Each structure stands twice: as structure tokens, then as C-alpha cells.
């Protein structure tokens, strides 16, 4: 994966993730999400390292050492991608639908009409709250739809939620 088309800031000229540059104004999410993700990764890494380290110390198996090295390498690679993955998240509100794009290795763009919205989730875990962030998720009747926007400031999350519910109520349709 060579992310040359992602090197620039997300609002840069049309890349493959930005299909309709003239009609869509992409909003980036807060870069603070990088820290949240890094801390999550760090916690996971610490747990793994302690487990593997104890195993190594008690059994003396060299395999544990090798696993330790692999885990550290993977974590380093993941940390590098987290930064770019967070920059790759974006959302845009159009007249009739919400666009959400994310993903580095596998890139995804979701187009969800407001009228198809069943309910909106706003959630914020302890770590997200510590960084003053929230996640908005839009649910449709289709289980496959994924329209999740993490890393929003609470004010922006509330605005998005209110706007989505207002638009959804206006245009709600049966299945």
C-alpha cells in the first residue's frame, strides 16, 4: 500500500476517494482522534507485551521473544497508519444524503439518504470523552450500511445529530 494519493490533506484535489469534487464539500474529522487511537493501541500493546514477556521469562521459549518482536513491529506499523487513516476519514452532507468515506487499505465510501435513516446513535467512550470527542452513527434498515463518523467535537456531533433527525423526520419513508 503506497498512499501517494493520500499524502496531501484530505481537502486537496480530487483523488479516488473524492468522486464529485465540485458538488461535495468534505469535512475532516478532528485530528485528536489520532491520540485516542494511539492510546487504544498502546493499551493493547502493553497487555500483549506483558503477557508475552511473562511467558518468555517463565518458559524461556525463544518463540515468545520472536512473537514479542513481531508484535512491536506490527504496532509500529499500525501507529504510522493510524495517523493517515484518521486523515482519510471524512464526511459530507449533501441535500439528500450523507457521505462518509474512510479506510486506507480498503477504501470505503457510503452514501446514505437521510430518508432511509432509522435512528442515529451518538456515543462517546471514556477515552473519547477525555479528548472531547464523540461518534455519530447513522443506522438504516440495511445491516450492511455503515455510516459512522468518529472524532467529532460534541458541538458538531450534536449539530449533525439534530440535522440528521430533522432531515430524517422530514423525509421519512417506509421501506
Amino acid at each position, binding site marked *: 500500500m503506497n498512499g501517494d494519493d493520500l499524502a496531501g490533506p484530505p481537502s486537496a484535489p480530487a483523488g479516488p476517494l473524492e468522486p464529485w469534487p465540485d458538488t461535495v464539500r468534505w469535512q475532516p474529522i478532528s485530528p485528536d482522534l489520532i491520540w485516542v487511537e494511539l492510546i487504544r493501541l498502546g493499551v493493547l500493546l502493553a497487555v500483549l507485551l506483558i503477557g508475552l514477556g511473562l511467558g518468555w521469562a517463565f518458559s524461556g521459549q525463544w518463540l515468545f521473544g520472536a512473537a514479542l518482536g513481531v508484535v512491536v513491529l506490527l504496532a509500529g506499523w499500525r501507529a504510522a497508519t493510524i495517523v493517515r487513516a484518521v486523515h482519510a476519514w471524512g464526511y459530507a452532507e449533501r441535500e439528500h444524503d450523507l457521505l462518509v468515506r474512510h479506510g486506507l487499505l*480498503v*477504501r470505503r*465510501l457510503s*452514501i446514505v439518504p437521510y430518508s432511509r435513516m432509522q435512528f442515529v446513535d451518538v456515543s462517546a467512550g471514556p477515552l473519547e470523552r477525555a479528548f472531547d470527542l464523540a461518534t455519530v452513527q447513522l443506522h438504516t*434498515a440495511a*445491516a450492511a450500511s455503515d455510516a459512522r463518523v468518529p472524532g467529532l467535537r460534541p458541538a458538531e456531533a450534536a449539530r449533525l445529530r439534530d440535522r440528521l433527525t430533522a432531515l430524517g423526520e422530514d423525509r421519512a419513508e417506509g421501506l
Partner: protein
Amino acid sequence: MSDGPADPRPPAHWPTAPQPGAPGTAGQGWPGHGWPGPPGVAPPPRAEPRQRLHPLSPALHGAKSLVVVIAGLSWSTLSRVGFGWFAAMAAVLALGATVLAVISWYNTGYHIVGRELRVHEGLIWRRTRAIPLERLQAVEVVRPLLAQLTGLAELRLEVVGGGKTEAPLAYLGVAEAAALRKRLLAVAGRPPEAVAPTAGQAAAPAPAGRRLHTVRNADLLVSQLLTPQAFLLPFGVAFVVTQFLSQGSWSFIAVASTLTAMAGVLLQPVRRVLDDWGFRLDRDGDTLRVRNGLLETRVQTVPLHRVQTVGITWPLLWRMRSWLRLRLEVAGYSAAEPDDRNRPDRLLPVGDLRTGELVVAAVLPGVRLTALPLTPPPRRARWLRPLSRSAIGAGLDDRVFAARSGVLTRQLAIVPYARIQSVRVTQGPAQRRLRLATVHADTAGGAGVSAHDRDLAEAWELAAELTARAHAARRADEDPHA
């Protein structure tokens, strides 16, 4: 959207009246006869007395549990405790189940209030389920063998949002079930015109409307013989027999277990034959009526505008007869129910192309199965799909989006624009190298339709076009409503 217990999730604006079955109020008496309405607040618009299920239903439930008990005790228990004790254990357990069934029957009631069906149940944990009928997707009348002998039927409702079948009302009299089905469908909106005046008092749910197709039972049998299970069974039998002959051990348990295992393998084709026996398809005004089953007859009624996707499958072994199978996805039958027996999604168990075309045209008006404008992905997609590049394809028709896939088992999925919930574009790393992308159209229920490995520019165009057409189709759908 699947979250454990089956609670119909009312939309935010739904007026929820306090429910008499709520745990908090469980202490106050609930006399068997004078069913009280919801306490407090203004009385609901069109309250009617609660109705009980058919008095024979506990007996049927008890008989059903007898089968379960025997299966649960299994062969090994039988050989360990002897027949007398086995029969006694089964009888005691089944009797207990029957007593419970009587109690639950006594405390179960249903009625239609306004635009919802309320089902009250439970003795200790009272529960009232209010099922909004706007969200009704399909109604099914199921008659297991015992119910057929006693003239009863079970009514099942599919409501979107519930992870599983809502409110199986088991059991009702047949006439009662047919009448209730008619009422429910009428309340559910867009009442089918042909339903109001005729039939309903007749003992059997009388087929009104136009017969679309009847599957010949001989075809059904042949089609199920042309499945891998039936094909491979002789080899399995030969293997087991040689095993036995070489070891020379013929204990009762071994033989019984082998037979059970054999039955397990054959279960699917045999079930298909039993389930799809006498398959008939009727169109009744705006609804589609699917009727099938030998031992257990099912009559499924689906309003046509509830059809989410139609899937067409050409199994490999059926190609010699150029047969196909049609499936129908309705919102509500979610992936939470993997048992395909309880997912009544059959539209045509077996048929030739002409029949398939006819049925598809009836279900999705204006769609011609053989004339769908499907185009294969660009040539460079062969790096990703060396074998199946020419087998996959996708295209936009006037009213539907269609995509085909599969080399050995060819499949085609069709979704009407008006039923598309969301559109997604995904691009994996290899696809990025080749400047390809996959476009998914998600539907409620079923897996949706995906156009794999389209050229990137075409994929964006497809996504934009799908979004626009879905929007326009919903608008057009809405107008007659309002």
C-alpha cells in the same frame, strides 16, 4: 439491528401508551375474562376486546413438545434405561409442557388497536407487544401436520426491526387466521383491492386472485435428486456398509446412529421436497401469495411493494435441464435466522427460464429477466478474477439494479431502485492498483446487490446514478401514498 429479545422497536414518534403487561403493574389482578384496557390516558381509537387463541392450541403445543422431548432423550438414553422408563420420562415431561402451555394459553390474548396489533402474554412476566402494522412486511399462515388434522393454523408476522419472526399466533382456527390476515394486511396500508368482498368464511383459505404458476411435483423431485447431497449419498452408504462388514459389529446403537447421520445428510433435499410440494404462486391484487408444503403447509402473503430483492440461481447440476430457482427477500427475515426453513424466501423452487421470466415480470413489473442490460467489468479485472470475469456483470435497468456472479453456480440479484437503503463504494488494495472499485446497493433484508470490479470512473458514475434513481423512485413511490 438484531438485539436479543424481539421487541418491536417503535419509531421515536410512536405514541406509546402505558402497557398493562409491564412488570411494574404485574401485581394487580388480571382476571381471565374482563380484559382491562390500558389504564389511564385517553382510550385508544378503536379498541376491541382481546381474543384468545384457539382452545386446542395447548394440546398441540404439548404434542409438539413430546417430539422434542423424545429427540432430546435420544437413542443412548433409550438403550440405557429401557423402553418402559423411557416412555414414562417422555410422558411426564410432555405432560409438564402441556400444563405450561395451558397456563400460557389462558394468559395470552391479542387484539388490534388502531394501527397496531397487541399481543399480551405471560403469567409471571407479563409482556405486551405492540406491533406497528405500518411495518408489516409479510404474513404467513403455517399449518403443521397436527394443525391440519385439527383444523388449526399458525399466523406469523414479519415486521421490520425485529430480529426474528414476530408474534407467532399459534394456533388459530383456519377461518379466523384467514380473516385476521386479511384485516392485518388491510390495516397495514395500501389495502389490496381484491381482498375486501369475497371469501374468508370458507374453511380453507380460499385462493382468490390470479394463478401465476404451479410447480410440477415431478420436476421438484428431479430437481432435488440433482443436488450434491443426493448425488453423493450412494458413495456414503457404500462406505458405511463396507466399514460395518469389515468390523462385523452390528450393535443397535451403531445402526441407529448411522441411520440418523444418513438422515441428516439427506435432510436438506428431503425437506425441500416436503416444503415445496404442491408449490403454487398466486397474485391477488397487490399481494403475492406463495403456497407450499406437504406435511406442513405454508401460505405466505407478501405485498408486492415489500419485495426487497429477487435472487435467481442456476445451480450447476440443474444446467442440463436449464432450470433455475427464484428467491425473494423481504425485510424482517434477517440473517439472525440462518435456518433457511424458517426463512420463507421461496419464490420458485424450480422452473425453466420462461417460467422464471414470467414470475419475475409479475413480481417486479416491467422487468424482463432475459433483457437486463448487464455489462461485464473491464478486461483488466481478469487479474483479480481470472475465471469469473466474464461471468460477473452489472447493469441499470429502468426500475431495477441487477448484478450477476458465479461461474459454477450462476446467480443474479435484482433490487428495485425504490428499495435501496444505501449505496457503498469499496476499493481494496489490488483493486486500487487496477483502478477498479466495487459498488454495493444495500437493502433491508438480504445481502443487497454488488457490482464487482467496475472501472473506477464507471463505479462513481454508477454510485451517483444509483443514488439519484433511488431518490427519484422513492419520490414516485411516495406520491400515491400521500
